[in-house]
Protein backbone atom coordinates (compact mmCIF):
# COMPACT_ATOMS: atom_id res chain seq x y z
CA UNK A 1 0.00 0.00 0.00
CA UNK A 2 2.73 2.45 0.90
CA UNK A 3 4.57 1.38 -2.27
CA UNK A 4 1.45 2.24 -4.21
CA UNK A 5 1.17 5.64 -2.53
CA UNK A 6 4.85 6.26 -3.10
CA UNK A 7 4.43 5.54 -6.82
CA UNK A 8 1.34 7.71 -6.92
CA UNK A 9 3.34 10.62 -5.50
CA UNK A 10 6.08 9.99 -8.05
CA UNK A 11 3.50 9.82 -10.82
CA UNK A 12 1.88 13.07 -9.72
CA UNK A 13 5.24 14.78 -9.63
CA UNK A 14 5.98 13.74 -13.20
CA UNK A 15 2.43 14.58 -14.18
CA UNK A 16 2.73 18.13 -12.84
CA UNK A 17 5.85 18.74 -14.90
CA UNK A 18 4.04 17.37 -17.96
CA UNK A 19 1.11 19.63 -17.12
CA UNK A 20 3.24 22.76 -17.28
CA UNK A 21 4.36 21.75 -20.79
CA UNK A 22 0.92 20.52 -21.85
CA UNK A 23 -0.70 23.85 -20.98
CA UNK A 24 1.39 25.64 -23.59
CA UNK A 25 0.55 23.01 -26.19
CA UNK A 26 -3.12 23.18 -25.50
CA UNK A 27 -3.33 26.98 -25.44
CA UNK A 28 -1.40 27.33 -28.69
CA UNK A 29 -3.39 24.59 -30.35
CA UNK A 30 -6.63 26.06 -29.12
CA UNK A 31 -5.82 29.40 -30.64
CA UNK A 32 -4.00 28.64 -33.93
CA UNK A 33 -4.68 24.90 -34.39
CA UNK A 34 -0.96 24.26 -34.66
CA UNK A 35 0.90 21.38 -33.04
CA UNK A 36 3.86 23.43 -31.88
CA UNK A 37 6.50 20.72 -31.96
CA UNK A 38 9.13 23.20 -30.83
CA UNK A 39 7.41 23.54 -27.48
CA UNK A 40 9.32 20.61 -25.95
CA UNK A 41 12.53 22.34 -26.95
CA UNK A 42 11.45 25.56 -25.30
CA UNK A 43 11.07 23.44 -22.17
CA UNK A 44 14.65 22.26 -22.64
CA UNK A 45 15.91 25.83 -23.04
CA UNK A 46 14.07 26.68 -19.80
CA UNK A 47 15.97 23.94 -18.00
CA UNK A 48 19.26 25.33 -19.31
CA UNK A 49 18.36 28.89 -18.36
CA UNK A 50 17.62 27.68 -14.84
CA UNK A 51 20.91 25.84 -14.86
CA UNK A 52 22.89 28.92 -15.90
CA UNK A 53 21.01 31.14 -13.49
CA UNK A 54 21.93 28.95 -10.57
CA UNK A 55 25.28 27.42 -11.56
CA UNK A 56 26.86 30.38 -13.34
CA UNK A 57 25.14 33.42 -11.94
CA UNK A 58 24.49 32.00 -8.48
CA UNK A 59 20.92 33.21 -8.35
CA UNK A 60 18.47 31.73 -5.82
CA UNK A 61 16.12 29.20 -7.27
CA UNK A 62 12.89 31.25 -7.29
CA UNK A 63 14.75 33.86 -9.33
CA UNK A 64 16.11 31.11 -11.57
CA UNK A 65 12.56 30.03 -12.31
CA UNK A 66 11.65 33.61 -13.18
CA UNK A 67 14.68 33.92 -15.46
CA UNK A 68 13.69 30.72 -17.24
CA UNK A 69 10.10 31.88 -17.59
CA UNK A 70 10.99 35.27 -19.00
CA UNK A 71 13.65 33.87 -21.31
CA UNK A 72 11.31 31.19 -22.64
CA UNK A 73 8.48 33.66 -23.09
CA UNK A 74 10.72 35.77 -25.30
CA UNK A 75 11.91 32.71 -27.19
CA UNK A 76 8.34 31.52 -27.75
CA UNK A 77 7.22 34.89 -29.04
CA UNK A 78 10.22 35.18 -31.36
CA UNK A 79 9.52 31.72 -32.80
CA UNK A 80 5.91 32.68 -33.39
CA UNK A 81 6.74 35.94 -35.15
CA UNK A 82 9.56 34.57 -37.31
CA UNK A 83 8.40 31.09 -38.20
CA UNK A 84 4.66 30.73 -37.70
CA UNK A 85 3.15 34.12 -38.39
CA UNK A 86 4.25 34.18 -42.06
CA UNK A 87 2.36 30.90 -42.50
CA UNK A 88 -0.91 31.85 -40.87
CA UNK A 89 -2.84 31.51 -44.12
CA UNK A 90 -0.75 28.74 -45.65
CA UNK A 91 -1.88 25.09 -45.69
CA UNK A 92 -1.72 23.69 -42.18
CA UNK A 93 0.80 21.06 -43.13
CA UNK A 94 3.31 23.79 -43.99
CA UNK A 95 3.00 25.24 -40.52
CA UNK A 96 3.38 21.78 -39.01
CA UNK A 97 6.51 21.02 -41.02
CA UNK A 98 7.85 24.43 -40.01
CA UNK A 99 7.21 23.61 -36.37
CA UNK A 100 9.17 20.39 -36.78
CA UNK A 101 11.91 22.34 -38.50
CA UNK A 102 12.08 24.83 -35.66
CA UNK A 103 12.19 21.97 -33.18
CA UNK A 104 15.07 20.23 -34.98
CA UNK A 105 16.86 23.54 -35.35
CA UNK A 106 16.73 24.32 -31.63
CA UNK A 107 17.84 20.79 -30.73
CA UNK A 108 20.73 20.68 -33.13
CA UNK A 109 21.79 24.26 -32.63
CA UNK A 110 21.92 23.98 -28.85
CA UNK A 111 23.70 20.67 -29.32
CA UNK A 112 26.67 22.52 -30.86
CA UNK A 113 29.69 22.73 -28.62
CA UNK A 114 29.77 26.49 -28.30
CA UNK A 115 26.08 26.62 -27.28
CA UNK A 116 25.00 24.03 -24.69
CA UNK A 117 26.97 21.12 -26.08
CA UNK A 118 25.82 17.48 -26.33
CA UNK A 119 27.19 16.38 -22.96
CA UNK A 120 24.58 15.99 -20.19
CA UNK A 121 25.02 18.30 -17.24
CA UNK A 122 24.14 17.74 -13.62
CA UNK A 123 21.46 20.17 -12.50
CA UNK A 124 22.56 22.12 -9.40
CA UNK A 125 20.60 21.87 -6.19
CA UNK A 126 21.23 24.87 -4.02
CA UNK A 127 20.05 23.06 -0.92
CA UNK A 128 20.35 19.59 0.53
CA UNK A 129 17.66 17.07 -0.38
CA UNK A 130 15.65 16.28 2.69
CA UNK A 131 13.24 13.45 2.99
CA UNK A 132 10.13 13.48 5.13
CA UNK A 133 8.56 10.24 6.09
CA UNK A 134 4.78 10.19 6.24
CA UNK A 135 3.49 6.81 7.24
CA UNK A 136 5.89 4.84 5.06
CA UNK A 137 5.72 7.23 2.15
CA UNK A 138 8.78 9.38 1.70
CA UNK A 139 8.40 12.84 0.28
CA UNK A 140 11.41 14.98 -0.50
CA UNK A 141 11.57 18.73 -0.31
CA UNK A 142 12.11 18.59 -4.12
CA UNK A 143 8.71 16.98 -4.52
CA UNK A 144 7.20 19.64 -2.31
CA UNK A 145 8.75 22.35 -4.47
CA UNK A 146 7.58 20.72 -7.71
CA UNK A 147 4.05 20.35 -6.35
CA UNK A 148 4.00 23.84 -4.90
CA UNK A 149 5.34 25.73 -7.88
CA UNK A 150 3.25 23.88 -10.45
CA UNK A 151 0.05 24.23 -8.47
CA UNK A 152 0.78 27.92 -7.93
CA UNK A 153 1.37 28.44 -11.67
CA UNK A 154 -1.73 26.50 -12.66
CA UNK A 155 -3.88 28.49 -10.27
CA UNK A 156 -2.36 31.72 -11.56
CA UNK A 157 -2.99 30.72 -15.15
CA UNK A 158 -6.56 29.73 -14.43
CA UNK A 159 -7.15 33.07 -12.75
CA UNK A 160 -5.52 34.95 -15.62
CA UNK A 161 -7.49 33.20 -18.34
CA UNK A 162 -10.82 33.42 -16.54
CA UNK A 163 -10.69 36.78 -14.86
CA UNK A 164 -8.60 39.25 -16.80
CA UNK A 165 -9.41 41.18 -19.92
CA UNK A 166 -6.52 39.64 -21.85
CA UNK A 167 -7.47 36.18 -20.65
CA UNK A 168 -11.02 36.75 -21.83
CA UNK A 169 -9.67 37.85 -25.19
CA UNK A 170 -7.57 34.69 -25.39
CA UNK A 171 -10.64 32.56 -24.85
CA UNK A 172 -12.59 34.60 -27.36
CA UNK A 173 -9.90 34.25 -30.03
CA UNK A 174 -9.69 30.51 -29.49
CA UNK A 175 -13.46 30.23 -29.99
CA UNK A 176 -13.94 32.48 -32.99
CA UNK A 177 -11.24 34.64 -34.54
CA UNK A 178 -13.39 36.69 -36.88
CA UNK A 179 -15.92 37.59 -34.22
CA UNK A 180 -13.06 38.49 -31.90
CA UNK A 181 -11.84 40.96 -34.52
CA UNK A 182 -15.33 42.41 -34.61
CA UNK A 183 -15.02 43.01 -30.87
CA UNK A 184 -11.91 45.09 -31.55
CA UNK A 185 -9.44 42.46 -30.35
CA UNK A 186 -6.04 42.52 -32.03
CA UNK A 187 -5.91 38.82 -32.78
CA UNK A 188 -2.23 38.74 -33.75
CA UNK A 189 -1.26 40.34 -30.48
CA UNK A 190 -3.30 37.83 -28.49
CA UNK A 191 -1.68 34.95 -30.36
CA UNK A 192 1.77 36.28 -29.52
CA UNK A 193 0.81 36.67 -25.87
CA UNK A 194 -0.48 33.11 -25.85
CA UNK A 195 2.83 31.81 -27.16
CA UNK A 196 4.59 33.88 -24.52
CA UNK A 197 2.55 32.55 -21.60
CA UNK A 198 2.68 28.97 -22.80
CA UNK A 199 6.43 29.15 -23.25
CA UNK A 200 6.91 30.72 -19.83
CA UNK A 201 5.09 27.79 -18.24
CA UNK A 202 7.24 25.34 -20.18
CA UNK A 203 10.30 27.24 -18.97
CA UNK A 204 9.22 26.82 -15.37
CA UNK A 205 8.53 23.15 -16.12
CA UNK A 206 12.08 22.82 -17.42
CA UNK A 207 13.58 24.12 -14.19
CA UNK A 208 11.37 21.86 -12.07
CA UNK A 209 12.29 18.90 -14.25
CA UNK A 210 15.94 19.73 -13.67
CA UNK A 211 15.34 19.75 -9.93
CA UNK A 212 13.48 16.49 -9.87
CA UNK A 213 15.48 14.44 -12.38
CA UNK A 214 18.77 16.25 -12.05
CA UNK A 215 20.37 15.83 -15.44
CA UNK A 216 19.81 17.95 -18.53
CA UNK A 217 20.89 17.74 -22.17
CA UNK A 218 19.75 19.32 -25.46
CA UNK A 219 17.51 16.42 -26.56
CA UNK A 220 15.75 16.15 -23.19
CA UNK A 221 12.67 18.00 -24.52
CA UNK A 222 11.66 15.52 -27.20
CA UNK A 223 9.95 12.81 -25.18
CA UNK A 224 8.42 14.99 -22.44
CA UNK A 225 7.26 17.31 -25.23
CA UNK A 226 5.53 14.52 -27.11
CA UNK A 227 4.01 13.12 -23.95
CA UNK A 228 2.79 16.52 -22.85
CA UNK A 229 1.15 17.01 -26.21
CA UNK A 230 -0.42 13.60 -25.94
CA UNK A 231 -1.60 14.60 -22.47
CA UNK A 232 -3.24 17.68 -23.93
CA UNK A 233 -5.01 15.56 -26.54
CA UNK A 234 -5.99 13.05 -23.89
CA UNK A 235 -7.67 15.72 -21.78
CA UNK A 236 -9.29 17.41 -24.77
CA UNK A 237 -7.11 19.73 -26.78
CA UNK A 238 -7.69 23.43 -26.31
CA UNK A 239 -9.16 22.90 -22.85
CA UNK A 240 -6.96 24.10 -20.00
CA UNK A 241 -8.24 21.83 -17.19
CA UNK A 242 -8.10 18.99 -19.75
CA UNK A 243 -4.38 19.50 -20.20
CA UNK A 244 -3.82 19.32 -16.45
CA UNK A 245 -5.94 16.20 -16.11
CA UNK A 246 -4.37 14.49 -19.12
CA UNK A 247 -0.88 15.29 -17.90
CA UNK A 248 -1.52 13.85 -14.47
CA UNK A 249 -2.95 10.70 -16.05
CA UNK A 250 0.09 10.36 -18.31
CA UNK A 251 2.49 10.83 -15.42
CA UNK A 252 0.72 8.31 -13.21
CA UNK A 253 0.27 5.71 -15.96
CA UNK A 254 3.91 6.00 -16.90
CA UNK A 255 5.16 5.70 -13.34
CA UNK A 256 2.89 2.77 -12.53
CA UNK A 257 3.96 0.94 -15.68
CA UNK A 258 7.58 1.37 -14.66
CA UNK A 259 6.85 0.27 -11.14
CA UNK A 260 4.57 -2.68 -11.75
CA UNK A 261 5.28 -3.86 -15.30
CA UNK A 262 8.49 -2.86 -16.96
CA UNK A 263 10.23 0.44 -17.34
CA UNK A 264 11.11 -0.29 -20.96
CA UNK A 265 7.44 -0.62 -21.84
CA UNK A 266 6.27 2.60 -20.18
CA UNK A 267 6.17 4.66 -23.40
CA UNK A 268 4.25 1.94 -25.19
CA UNK A 269 1.65 1.80 -22.44
CA UNK A 270 1.33 5.60 -22.27
CA UNK A 271 0.71 5.89 -26.00
CA UNK A 272 -1.51 2.83 -25.96
CA UNK A 273 -3.74 4.61 -23.45
CA UNK A 274 -3.84 7.59 -25.80
CA UNK A 275 -4.96 5.51 -28.78
CA UNK A 276 -7.66 3.79 -26.76
CA UNK A 277 -8.99 7.08 -25.37
CA UNK A 278 -9.05 8.59 -28.87
CA UNK A 279 -11.02 5.65 -30.21
CA UNK A 280 -13.56 5.76 -27.42
CA UNK A 281 -13.72 9.54 -27.14
CA UNK A 282 -12.09 11.16 -30.17
CA UNK A 283 -12.14 14.65 -28.69
CA UNK A 284 -10.47 13.72 -25.42
CA UNK A 285 -11.77 13.23 -21.90
CA UNK A 286 -13.14 16.74 -21.37
CA UNK A 287 -13.60 17.56 -25.08
CA UNK A 288 -16.98 18.26 -26.53
CA UNK A 289 -17.89 16.07 -29.50
CA UNK A 290 -18.21 18.26 -32.57
CA UNK A 291 -20.68 17.82 -35.40
CA UNK A 292 -19.83 18.37 -39.00
CA UNK A 293 -21.93 20.86 -40.88
CA UNK A 294 -23.54 19.63 -44.04
Amino acid at each position, binding site marked *: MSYFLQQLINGLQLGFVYALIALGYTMVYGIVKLINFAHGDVFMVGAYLGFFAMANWALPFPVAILVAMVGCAVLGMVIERLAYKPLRNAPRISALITAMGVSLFIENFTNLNFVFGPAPRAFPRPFAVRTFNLGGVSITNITVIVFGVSILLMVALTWFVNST*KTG*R*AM*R*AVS*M*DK*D*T*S*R*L*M*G*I*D*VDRIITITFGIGSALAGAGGVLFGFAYPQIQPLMGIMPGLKAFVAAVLGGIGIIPGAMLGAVIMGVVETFTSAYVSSTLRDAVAFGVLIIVLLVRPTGILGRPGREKV
Partner: protein
Amino acid sequence: MTQQSNGVLLSVKDLVVSYGAIRALHGISFEVGEGEVVTLIGANGAGKSTTLNAVSGLVRPSGGEIRFLGRRIDGKPGHAIVRLGLTQVPEGRRPFLGMTVRENLQLGAFNRPKSEISETMDRVFKSFPRLKERLGQTAGTLSGGELQMLAMARGLMARPRLMMLDEPSMGLSPILVQEIFSIISEINRQGTSILLVEQNAYMALRVAHRVYVLETGEVVLSGTAAELRESPRVKSAYLGE
Protein backbone atom coordinates in the same frame (compact mmCIF):
# COMPACT_ATOMS: atom_id res chain seq x y z
CA MET B 1 -17.20 65.16 -37.47
CA THR B 2 -14.66 65.92 -40.14
CA GLN B 3 -15.61 68.40 -42.76
CA GLN B 4 -15.40 66.24 -45.87
CA SER B 5 -17.87 63.73 -44.52
CA ASN B 6 -20.85 66.07 -44.96
CA GLY B 7 -23.18 63.99 -42.85
CA VAL B 8 -22.04 60.85 -44.64
CA LEU B 9 -20.79 58.27 -42.17
CA LEU B 10 -19.82 55.46 -44.46
CA SER B 11 -19.12 55.67 -48.14
CA VAL B 12 -18.21 52.68 -50.28
CA LYS B 13 -17.03 53.17 -53.84
CA ASP B 14 -16.51 50.51 -56.52
CA LEU B 15 -15.81 47.82 -53.95
CA VAL B 16 -14.46 44.60 -55.45
CA VAL B 17 -13.89 41.42 -53.44
CA SER B 18 -12.67 38.08 -54.76
CA TYR B 19 -12.32 34.70 -53.10
CA GLY B 20 -9.64 32.93 -55.09
CA ALA B 21 -10.81 32.78 -58.67
CA ILE B 22 -14.37 33.67 -57.76
CA ARG B 23 -15.36 37.29 -57.70
CA ALA B 24 -17.97 37.94 -55.04
CA LEU B 25 -18.42 41.69 -55.50
CA HIS B 26 -18.10 43.39 -58.86
CA GLY B 27 -17.63 46.99 -57.80
CA ILE B 28 -20.51 48.13 -55.62
CA SER B 29 -21.05 51.64 -54.28
CA PHE B 30 -23.33 52.92 -51.53
CA GLU B 31 -23.46 55.38 -48.66
CA VAL B 32 -24.83 55.50 -45.15
CA GLY B 33 -25.63 58.94 -43.75
CA GLU B 34 -25.62 60.15 -40.17
CA GLY B 35 -28.73 58.92 -38.37
CA GLU B 36 -29.92 56.72 -41.23
CA VAL B 37 -31.08 53.11 -41.44
CA VAL B 38 -29.87 51.73 -44.75
CA THR B 39 -30.58 48.21 -45.87
CA LEU B 40 -29.03 45.89 -48.44
CA ILE B 41 -31.44 43.26 -49.69
CA GLY B 42 -30.83 40.41 -52.05
CA ALA B 43 -30.91 36.64 -52.41
CA ASN B 44 -28.52 34.17 -50.81
CA GLY B 45 -25.06 34.59 -52.27
CA ALA B 46 -25.74 38.04 -53.70
CA GLY B 47 -22.76 39.40 -51.79
CA LYS B 48 -24.43 41.08 -48.82
CA SER B 49 -22.38 39.46 -46.09
CA THR B 50 -19.21 39.88 -48.14
CA THR B 51 -19.93 43.59 -48.29
CA LEU B 52 -20.23 43.87 -44.53
CA ASN B 53 -17.15 41.74 -43.98
CA ALA B 54 -15.15 43.96 -46.32
CA VAL B 55 -16.29 47.09 -44.51
CA SER B 56 -15.41 45.70 -41.10
CA GLY B 57 -12.01 44.49 -42.27
CA LEU B 58 -12.58 40.73 -42.10
CA VAL B 59 -11.97 40.29 -45.82
CA ARG B 60 -9.53 42.35 -47.80
CA PRO B 61 -11.02 44.10 -50.81
CA SER B 62 -9.18 43.75 -54.10
CA GLY B 63 -10.43 47.08 -55.40
CA GLY B 64 -12.35 50.23 -54.60
CA GLU B 65 -12.34 52.35 -51.48
CA ILE B 66 -14.18 52.43 -48.18
CA ARG B 67 -14.33 55.61 -46.10
CA PHE B 68 -15.68 55.97 -42.60
CA LEU B 69 -16.02 59.51 -41.26
CA GLY B 70 -14.05 60.62 -44.28
CA ARG B 71 -11.08 58.38 -43.50
CA ARG B 72 -9.94 55.48 -45.69
CA ILE B 73 -10.47 52.23 -43.79
CA ASP B 74 -10.07 49.60 -46.50
CA GLY B 75 -7.04 47.46 -45.74
CA LYS B 76 -7.06 48.41 -42.07
CA PRO B 77 -7.20 45.47 -39.65
CA GLY B 78 -10.61 44.69 -38.20
CA HIS B 79 -9.77 45.63 -34.63
CA ALA B 80 -8.66 49.11 -35.69
CA ILE B 81 -11.93 49.71 -37.52
CA VAL B 82 -13.97 48.87 -34.43
CA ARG B 83 -12.05 51.53 -32.52
CA LEU B 84 -13.26 54.15 -35.00
CA GLY B 85 -16.85 53.46 -33.99
CA LEU B 86 -18.03 50.93 -36.55
CA THR B 87 -19.22 47.54 -35.33
CA GLN B 88 -20.74 44.53 -37.00
CA VAL B 89 -23.25 42.12 -35.54
CA PRO B 90 -22.38 39.02 -37.54
CA GLU B 91 -24.63 36.61 -39.35
CA GLY B 92 -25.65 33.71 -37.14
CA ARG B 93 -25.03 35.89 -34.02
CA ARG B 94 -21.70 34.14 -33.36
CA PRO B 95 -21.91 34.33 -29.57
CA PHE B 96 -18.98 33.09 -27.49
CA LEU B 97 -21.01 30.11 -26.39
CA GLY B 98 -18.89 28.92 -23.49
CA MET B 99 -18.83 32.36 -21.88
CA THR B 100 -21.42 34.07 -19.76
CA VAL B 101 -23.64 36.85 -21.00
CA ARG B 102 -21.62 39.29 -18.91
CA GLU B 103 -18.35 38.14 -20.46
CA ASN B 104 -19.81 38.43 -23.94
CA LEU B 105 -20.84 42.00 -23.20
CA GLN B 106 -17.47 42.83 -21.69
CA LEU B 107 -15.80 41.59 -24.86
CA GLY B 108 -18.01 43.90 -26.87
CA ALA B 109 -16.50 46.80 -24.95
CA PHE B 110 -12.96 45.48 -25.41
CA ASN B 111 -11.48 48.80 -26.45
CA ARG B 112 -13.51 51.01 -24.14
CA PRO B 113 -12.16 52.28 -20.81
CA LYS B 114 -13.04 49.99 -17.92
CA SER B 115 -14.69 52.84 -16.04
CA GLU B 116 -17.52 53.29 -18.50
CA ILE B 117 -18.43 49.61 -18.95
CA SER B 118 -21.03 49.31 -16.23
CA GLU B 119 -22.68 52.52 -17.36
CA THR B 120 -22.83 51.32 -20.97
CA MET B 121 -24.21 48.02 -19.79
CA ASP B 122 -27.02 49.74 -17.94
CA ARG B 123 -27.84 51.74 -21.04
CA VAL B 124 -27.89 48.60 -23.18
CA PHE B 125 -30.20 46.84 -20.71
CA LYS B 126 -32.83 49.48 -21.36
CA SER B 127 -33.21 48.02 -24.84
CA PHE B 128 -32.64 44.43 -23.76
CA PRO B 129 -34.04 43.99 -20.25
CA ARG B 130 -34.14 40.23 -20.68
CA LEU B 131 -30.34 40.04 -20.86
CA LYS B 132 -30.00 41.63 -17.46
CA GLU B 133 -31.73 38.65 -15.88
CA ARG B 134 -29.39 36.30 -17.68
CA LEU B 135 -26.06 38.00 -16.91
CA GLY B 136 -24.50 35.02 -15.17
CA GLN B 137 -25.76 32.35 -17.56
CA THR B 138 -23.52 30.98 -20.29
CA ALA B 139 -24.54 32.07 -23.75
CA GLY B 140 -25.10 28.45 -24.72
CA THR B 141 -28.22 28.32 -22.55
CA LEU B 142 -29.98 31.19 -24.34
CA SER B 143 -32.73 30.80 -26.93
CA GLY B 144 -32.36 31.92 -30.53
CA GLY B 145 -34.06 35.25 -29.94
CA GLU B 146 -32.04 35.93 -26.82
CA LEU B 147 -28.85 35.14 -28.71
CA GLN B 148 -29.77 37.70 -31.34
CA MET B 149 -30.37 40.24 -28.59
CA LEU B 150 -27.05 39.33 -27.00
CA ALA B 151 -25.28 39.82 -30.32
CA MET B 152 -26.84 43.24 -30.77
CA ALA B 153 -26.18 44.26 -27.17
CA ARG B 154 -22.60 43.13 -27.55
CA GLY B 155 -22.29 45.30 -30.64
CA LEU B 156 -23.69 48.29 -28.77
CA MET B 157 -21.19 47.89 -25.94
CA ALA B 158 -18.55 49.41 -28.22
CA ARG B 159 -20.69 52.59 -28.41
CA PRO B 160 -20.62 52.59 -32.20
CA ARG B 161 -21.50 55.47 -34.49
CA LEU B 162 -22.57 52.93 -37.10
CA MET B 163 -23.74 49.41 -36.40
CA MET B 164 -23.97 46.84 -39.19
CA LEU B 165 -26.41 43.97 -38.72
CA ASP B 166 -26.19 40.81 -40.80
CA GLU B 167 -29.47 38.88 -41.09
CA PRO B 168 -30.83 39.60 -37.61
CA SER B 169 -34.13 37.86 -38.36
CA MET B 170 -32.63 34.56 -39.42
CA GLY B 171 -34.35 31.56 -37.89
CA LEU B 172 -36.61 33.59 -35.61
CA SER B 173 -40.36 33.35 -35.26
CA PRO B 174 -42.44 36.23 -36.67
CA ILE B 175 -43.17 37.68 -33.24
CA LEU B 176 -39.50 37.75 -32.33
CA VAL B 177 -38.67 39.26 -35.71
CA GLN B 178 -41.12 42.05 -34.90
CA GLU B 179 -39.46 42.62 -31.57
CA ILE B 180 -35.95 42.62 -32.99
CA PHE B 181 -36.92 45.13 -35.65
CA SER B 182 -38.60 47.46 -33.23
CA ILE B 183 -35.42 47.39 -31.13
CA ILE B 184 -33.42 48.22 -34.24
CA SER B 185 -35.62 51.26 -34.86
CA GLU B 186 -35.24 52.29 -31.26
CA ILE B 187 -31.45 52.00 -31.35
CA ASN B 188 -31.51 54.17 -34.42
CA ARG B 189 -33.68 56.79 -32.72
CA GLN B 190 -31.15 56.96 -29.92
CA GLY B 191 -28.56 58.10 -32.42
CA THR B 192 -26.79 55.04 -33.84
CA SER B 193 -26.84 54.70 -37.62
CA ILE B 194 -27.66 51.28 -38.96
CA LEU B 195 -26.58 49.31 -42.02
CA LEU B 196 -28.82 46.29 -42.27
CA VAL B 197 -28.50 43.20 -44.43
CA GLU B 198 -31.69 41.17 -44.72
CA GLN B 199 -33.41 38.44 -46.61
CA ASN B 200 -36.65 39.32 -44.95
CA ALA B 201 -37.43 42.08 -47.39
CA TYR B 202 -40.77 43.02 -45.80
CA MET B 203 -39.28 43.92 -42.48
CA ALA B 204 -36.19 45.48 -43.95
CA LEU B 205 -38.27 47.76 -46.12
CA ARG B 206 -40.36 48.76 -43.15
CA VAL B 207 -37.55 49.96 -40.90
CA ALA B 208 -35.15 51.33 -43.51
CA HIS B 209 -34.88 54.85 -44.83
CA ARG B 210 -33.01 53.87 -47.93
CA VAL B 211 -32.45 50.56 -49.72
CA TYR B 212 -29.90 49.03 -52.10
CA VAL B 213 -30.79 45.83 -53.96
CA LEU B 214 -27.86 43.47 -54.59
CA GLU B 215 -27.80 40.77 -57.22
CA THR B 216 -24.74 38.59 -57.86
CA GLY B 217 -22.31 41.11 -56.50
CA GLU B 218 -23.77 44.24 -58.03
CA VAL B 219 -26.14 46.96 -56.93
CA VAL B 220 -29.02 46.71 -59.39
CA LEU B 221 -31.48 49.08 -57.78
CA SER B 222 -31.53 51.71 -55.07
CA GLY B 223 -33.85 54.29 -53.63
CA THR B 224 -35.92 55.18 -50.62
CA ALA B 225 -37.74 52.37 -48.89
CA ALA B 226 -41.07 53.83 -49.96
CA GLU B 227 -40.04 53.84 -53.62
CA LEU B 228 -38.80 50.29 -53.57
CA ARG B 229 -41.86 48.94 -51.80
CA GLU B 230 -43.74 49.86 -54.95
CA SER B 231 -41.10 48.65 -57.40
CA PRO B 232 -42.46 45.75 -59.46
CA ARG B 233 -39.03 44.23 -59.67
CA VAL B 234 -38.65 44.10 -55.91
CA LYS B 235 -42.18 42.84 -55.55
CA SER B 236 -41.67 39.88 -57.85
CA ALA B 237 -38.21 38.92 -56.72
CA TYR B 238 -38.35 39.50 -52.99
CA LEU B 239 -41.91 39.86 -51.89
CA GLY B 240 -43.22 36.88 -53.78
CA GLU B 241 -46.03 38.74 -55.43
